[in-house]
């Protein structure tokens, strides 16, 4: 082998060596890039995990807040129920008081109409007090149920309708005593 050929081989060798070095440098660069990419991926993953963890923590905080709110609402509901019961009891008490007060007022104003009551004094003495008492007692019942106006009408009806039976009864007694018979006989004698 001559000198020129040897030189050529050496140049080829150097060239190949230079290419090898370039390739090795390229490998090194790629390796660095790969590590950088891996690192970025890892960093992104870490960021995502941190975000997820923060989200979980935020949800946990929200849940706790919701639970606290629910507990507060339960307490408020119980409190409201208690207040409602108390108000209902107060309302009932007030209704009872009002009813008692109304009853007391009614007792004061439940007297029957004076004129009609006055007419009853013309009833026979034996039953007068009982009739007046019965009518007065029932008048207050009718008034509570149907109002004063209807009670007054009812009372007048009772007074008016009560006179007729006593009148008939009185006439029957007169007949029984013979007074009417005697008067009738006397009239008959005078009439031709």
């Amino acid at each position, binding site marked *: 082998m001559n000198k020129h050929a040897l030189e050529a081989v050496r140049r080829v060798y150097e060239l190949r060596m230079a290419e090898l070095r370039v390739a090795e440098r390229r490998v090194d660069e790629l390796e660095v890039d790969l590590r950088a990419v891996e690192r970025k991926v890892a960093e992104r993953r870490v960021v995502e995990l941190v975000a997820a963890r923060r989200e979980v923590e935020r949800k946990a905080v929200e849940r706790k807040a919701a639970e606290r709110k629910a507990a507060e609402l339960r307490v408020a509901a119980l409190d409201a129920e208690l207040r409602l019961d108390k108000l209902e009891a107060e309302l009932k008490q007030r209704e009872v008081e009002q009813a008692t007060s109304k009853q007391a007022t009614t*007792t004061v104003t439940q007297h029957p109409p004076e004129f009609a009551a006055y007419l009853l004094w013309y009833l026979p003495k*034996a039953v007068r007090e*009982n009739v007046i008492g*019965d009518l*007065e*007692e029932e008048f207050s019942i009718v008034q509570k149920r149907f109002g004063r106006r209807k009670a007054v009408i009812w009372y007048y*009806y009772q007074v008016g*309708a009560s006179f*007729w039976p006593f009148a008939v009864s009185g006439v029957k007694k007169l007949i029984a005593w013979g007074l009417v018979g005697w008067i009738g006989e006397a009239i008959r004698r005078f009439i031709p």
Partner: protein
Amino acid sequence: MGDEKQYLGGFEETVLLAIMRLGSNAYGMTIRQTVEEASGRATSIGAVYTTLERLEQKGFVSSRQGESTPERGGRAKKYFTIEGAGARALDDAQQVRDLLRGGLRPAGGVV
């Protein structure tokens, strides 16, 4: 004359039955209400008292003065109780009715 039967009128019978039904709470107002509710017709307290007076004269009922209440203006109640004669009169009236009613349809005519 003592054994002579005293017959009951229709309203008298109703009043007697009302007294029997009311028991110890039979006085003018309750009797009137019971008669009115049972008959469905307006009944005056005067009609009730004249009938009660008649029944008392016949010995069918007896009366006693009761307590006075503020609702009655302090006037006493007069309670009525049915007597033996009254109960017998009711039985008699029922017998007569059963006798006459026997074999008759409710709407009239013979069974």
